[in-house]
Each structure stands twice: as C-alpha cells, then as structure tokens.
C-alpha cells in the first residue's frame, strides 16, 4: 500500500477508495449495462416491470429481515437474523390458498388467518430467543425447517390453485401501468421506512441493536423491542404471501428455498449500498430489485441454469468483500 501511494501521492489511494466505496454499485451497473447490450429485450418496459414484480415478495420479506437485523445487531452469528421468514411466507401462502380454494372463506378471513399463522411463527421465535436465550440464527434456522415441514404436511406437498377474484385482481390490475404487486412493494417500503428510519420505535430498536447494555442503561428495555421485531417480521411474511398467492395463482411447493436465498442476498447486497454498510429499507429494496433484474437478465441471455447460483455467489462475495475492505480501511 505504501509503495502504491508513493507512485501517485493522492491519485492512487483516492481512486482505490472510490473503487472500493462505489465498487458494488459500479459492478452492478456494469452487469446491467452488459445485459442491456446483450439482450434487446432486457431494457423493455415489459421485462423491467416483470423484474419489479419478481422483486416484490423478495423485498417485502427482506424488509422484515431488516427489522430483525436492526434490533439484534448486524453480527450475523451472534446478532439478529430471521431465516424463518421465507418459511412463514410459504405457510401464509398455503393458508390463504387453502382458505380461498378449499374452505370457502372470504379474503378477509384468509388474510387474518394467514397473518395469525405467520405471527405465531414469529412469537415462537420470540420465545426461543428472548426467553430461552437461543441465538437467533439457531432458533430461526430450526424454525425454518419445522415450518417447511408443517407446510408440507398441511398441503400434502401439492399445489393449491386459487381463482379468487381479489387475488386475480392483485395479479392483473395495473394502476398507472404498474402491476399491483409492485404497488404493494412500494407501500410496504414506505411503511417500513417510516417505522425504521422515522419513528421513535425505529430509533430505539437501532439503539438496542447497536449495544444492548448501553440501551438498557439509557432506559430502553431491549427485550420488548427484540420481541416486536420478530412479530413484525411475521407480518412482513404474511404481506409477501399475498403477492406470492396472486403471482402464482395459489401456492406451490418449494417457494421457500428460492425466497430464502434471494432474501439474504437482497438484504446484504442492499447494506453494501448504504453509507455505513448497515441494513436500510431503501438499500434492501434496491438489493431486491437488482437481484431480480439480474436473475431475469441472466435467463434472457440464456445463461445455463447451473451457472446462475454461481453468479449469485460470486456477486455476494464481491459486494461483501468490497464492504469489508472498506470497513477495514476505516478502522
């Protein structure tokens, strides 16, 4: 490093800093540029809107994850994380579909039951994390496995098709030319942004996540905040389920796994876009949109399915490595 800075006193370190700081963004920019050159369909309105529609459930579950990460601190192993959100979303999707298709329930009842189911999963997480004292990665991973199993028993691992008019409306309606799921994503983004970044609750939650003892000393009891974060994550899962049911016209087995991958990817890629490398609502939404655009683009240019996971892995690593190197520099 010192050898480098001798060569170009200011220019080289400055260039390095910019490259590291903006590296993830530049990389995504370059990839998107390449995709738009390689496939003429990539920049078409239809493809952009369909990418946004795909991003919607990813973004909404990732908002839920953002709340938990804020409250638990962003050390993934010791801090806050909720890997059970995608399983809760799958559960809520199954409940909505089953209620509408098989039980003859109205939309309101289906939504209430689905939200109750997802929040119940959150409540069990609360019990495991705040009362019993399991680390959140461990309890939510075990809950993920359990809930996925429960969904499989509940649906007999079969598809449930829904033709409820409200759900079809969410699927097909396009107010101002923008699909309804995208509106749901925007609405959720605004709600979560207000909650996390503009409310007293959000500030206290962040204080708890930053340093539990300091927060406790200044009169904030950490436990209720951590508990609330897991319950809110359940609500996010249920919201995502509405979009999932509408988009897929029902529930299909195995939606949880892809959602888990994309949620984690969107959240941590998203945090690399914030100034201090923390999880923020706008960052998470940007992350989800980029993940969806990339998946779509890679399919458009006919990249073999086998390579797509690898692309995502390399991308995760470049983004988080850039962020890590930047942090190290600052330290």
């Amino acid at each position, binding site marked *: 490093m010192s050898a480098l800075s001798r060569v170009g006193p200011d220019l080289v370190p400055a260039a390095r800093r910019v490259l590291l700081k903006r590296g993830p963004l530049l990389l995504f920019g370059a990839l998107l540029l390449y995709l738009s050159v390689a496939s003429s369909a990539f920049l078409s309105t239809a493809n952009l809107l369909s990418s946004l529609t795909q991003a919607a459930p990813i973004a909404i579950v990732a908002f839920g994850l953002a709340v938990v990460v804020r409250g638990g601190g962003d*050390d*993934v*192993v*010791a801090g806050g994380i909720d890997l059970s959100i995608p399983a809760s979303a799958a559960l809520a999707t199954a409940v909505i579909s089953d209620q509408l298709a098989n039980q003859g329930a109205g939309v309101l009842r289906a939504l209430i039951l689905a939200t109750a189911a997802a929040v119940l999963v959150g409540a*069990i997480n609360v*019990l*495991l994390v705040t009362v*019993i*004292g*399991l*680390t959140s*990665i*461990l*309890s939510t*991973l*075990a*809950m993920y*496995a*359990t*809930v*996925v*199993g*429960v969904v*499989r*028993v509940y649906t*007999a*691992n079969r598809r449930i098709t829904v033709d409820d008019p409200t759900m079809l409306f969410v699927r097909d309606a396009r107010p101002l030319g923008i699909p309804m799921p995208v509106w749901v994503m925007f609405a959720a983004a605004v709600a979560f942004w207000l909650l996390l970044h503009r409310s007293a609750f959000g500030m206290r939650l962040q204080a708890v996540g930053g340093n539990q003892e300091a927060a406790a000393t200044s009169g904030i009891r950490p436990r209720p905040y951590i508990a609330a974060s897991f319950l809110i994550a359940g609500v996010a899962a249920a919201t995502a389920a509405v979009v999932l049911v509408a988009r897929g016209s029902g529930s299909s087995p195995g939606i949880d796994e892809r959602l888990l*991958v994309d949620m*984690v990817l969107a959240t*941590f890629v998203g945090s690399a876009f914030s100034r201090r490398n923390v999880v923020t609502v706008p960052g998470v939404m940007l992350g989800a949109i980029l993940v969806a655009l990339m998946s779509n683009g890679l399919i458009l240019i006919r990249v*073999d*399915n*086998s*390579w*797509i*996971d*690898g*692309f*995502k*892995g*390399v991308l*995760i*690593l470049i983004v*988080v*490595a850039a962020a*890590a*190197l930047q*942090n*190290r520099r600052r330290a």
Partner: protein
Amino acid sequence: MSATDRADGVKPGAWVAKYAFVAAFAGLFAFFALRTTTFLSASNLMNVLEGSMILLFVALAMTLVVSSGGIDLSVGIALDFGAWFVLIAMLEYDLAWPLAVIAGLLGGAVVGGLNAFLIVGLGVTPFLATLGTFFIGRSAQQIGTGGGGNVSFRGAPEGFQSLAGGAALGIPHELIIGAVVLAAFYVVLQRSTHGTRIHAMGLQDPAARVAGLRTRRYRTLVYVLSGATAAIGGILLSSSLRLYTPQAGFAYLLDAIAAVFIGASMHPRSRPNVLGTLVGVLFLGVVGNGLDLLGLDFNLKAALRGGILVVALALAFLVSRRGSAASASGD
C-alpha cells in the same frame, strides 16, 4: 460436565432445567423402545451409530469453526466435494483408492481454503463468506455433472468399499474411523494449547491478537481443516453408496449446527465442545432412526423432526440461560 459449577449459578429449580434435555432424550428413547419392536435390538442400535457417522464428521467440522468464533455454511459443499472427488479420481484418473481418498480430502480442503481466503484475506464475515462459497459450490457441482446427474461407480475397488462397509474384529470400519477422528478432535480442541488458542480466538479475537496469537494462521487452518473433516463424511458416503449425488451434503447443515449448539449447552460456559457435539449427533441419530421405524408419512416426518429439534434446542438452552447466556454464541 456440570452446568452449575459456579456458586452464583445455582438457583431453585435449576436442576430441573439442567436435566431437562437429558430427560427428554431418555423419554424419547423410551418412547421409541416401547412403540417399536425393533428399536432396542442390537442391530438397530448399531444402525443408529453407523447412521450417525457422516453427521459426526460434519458436526466436528462445525464444532471447530464455531469454537473459533465463526460459522461454516459450506460444510455440506465440502462433504459433496469429498464424495465427488474421490469417485472422479478413481473413475477418470485411475488413481489407486488410497490416493483417491487423499484427492477427496483435498477437495474438502479446497472449499475450506476458499473460505479462509475470504475470511482471513479479505475480512468478509464467516456467515456471508461461507454462504457465497455455498452458492459457488452448488453451481460448480451442477456444472461439473452436466446439470446435476449422479456419478455412479458400482465396480469401486474392494478396499474402497470396505471403508464404510467392512469391519475389523466385528467393529465396522466406519465406527473405527469415527472414533479415531473424534479422539483426535478431542485431544486437539479440548486438551491441547492449540485448542485453547482457538477457543481464545473465538471468545475474544482482539484480545487473542494483542496477546500475540497468530490468529490469521489459526483461522486459516480452522477453515481448511473443517473442509477436510466434512470431506471424510463425503468419502464414506461415496464408499457406502458407490454413488455421488450432487448437493447431498446440504441435508447435514442444519443438523450439524444443531448438534454443536446442543453440545455447547451442556458445557459449563456454553462453549462448543467435542463430547457435547457427540451427544448432539447421537440424539439426532436416535430421532431420525426412531421416526423411520414408526413408519410415518415422509412429510410428517420432516415436520416432526423439525419440531423435536426446536424443543430439544429449547430444553438444552434452558440450562445455560442464566449466568452464561452472553457467551453462548462465542462472540
């Protein structure tokens, strides 16, 4: 291994919590013994032991990494690479089987090496680094097998097949290998200076560094060894099935993490430890075997297994809840 070795930890009813997990283990054991005629037979108990061996290697790898303060989400990939490389080395490079076994171990070590590069070299957090490795490894297997086909080697050499299938003095080779590796891990991690240093690194990395520990070197070794250890499991899997199935290792990830933390909960200071991990592995082995014998529906089994895991973790952690919850994750 007393959970209440400190005077301030003893509280009324603490002993109930202390033995809650042991009681649950015993209760489950008794339940399976009463409900099925075959569970208690010598040959079935042998099945449980043998069936636990692959998880044992993966869980030992995880114990090592968690002791050092990290986590390894790519242990399943290391297992896969071990299983894959050992067969390819014999099938396509005509190596003698002992050399092929070394190739398999190297396959796992390469996975660990990539993790070490990302974590030690670039400063990426273990969760995200090993998650990235997980995606890349998954993709690599898809690409390498032309979209996820099996690699079968029915005519594998006798010597190789006997690694998992053979026996010496009536004791299956698999158990002997397991016992040797277990003993080696116990000695290194619990009874040697190296182990103390790895635990020190896991508890207080900055302090360990200030005290002159070469944490970079140790951490690199930890991840490489973790990959190689998980690969032993893969090699045995290939030996017994004479078949490599891409991504078979993923199934062991959650169980390995659970076994390590069940084990950690039995330690006076909630640290991951080799013998505790063994108890966790045997517990999961008993649950899996018992549920199989009950002849339940596949989906129901998945749900029950998850539920039992959640309850077991909860019971196990009731023990360490008071007094030492802060050090549970080794942060």
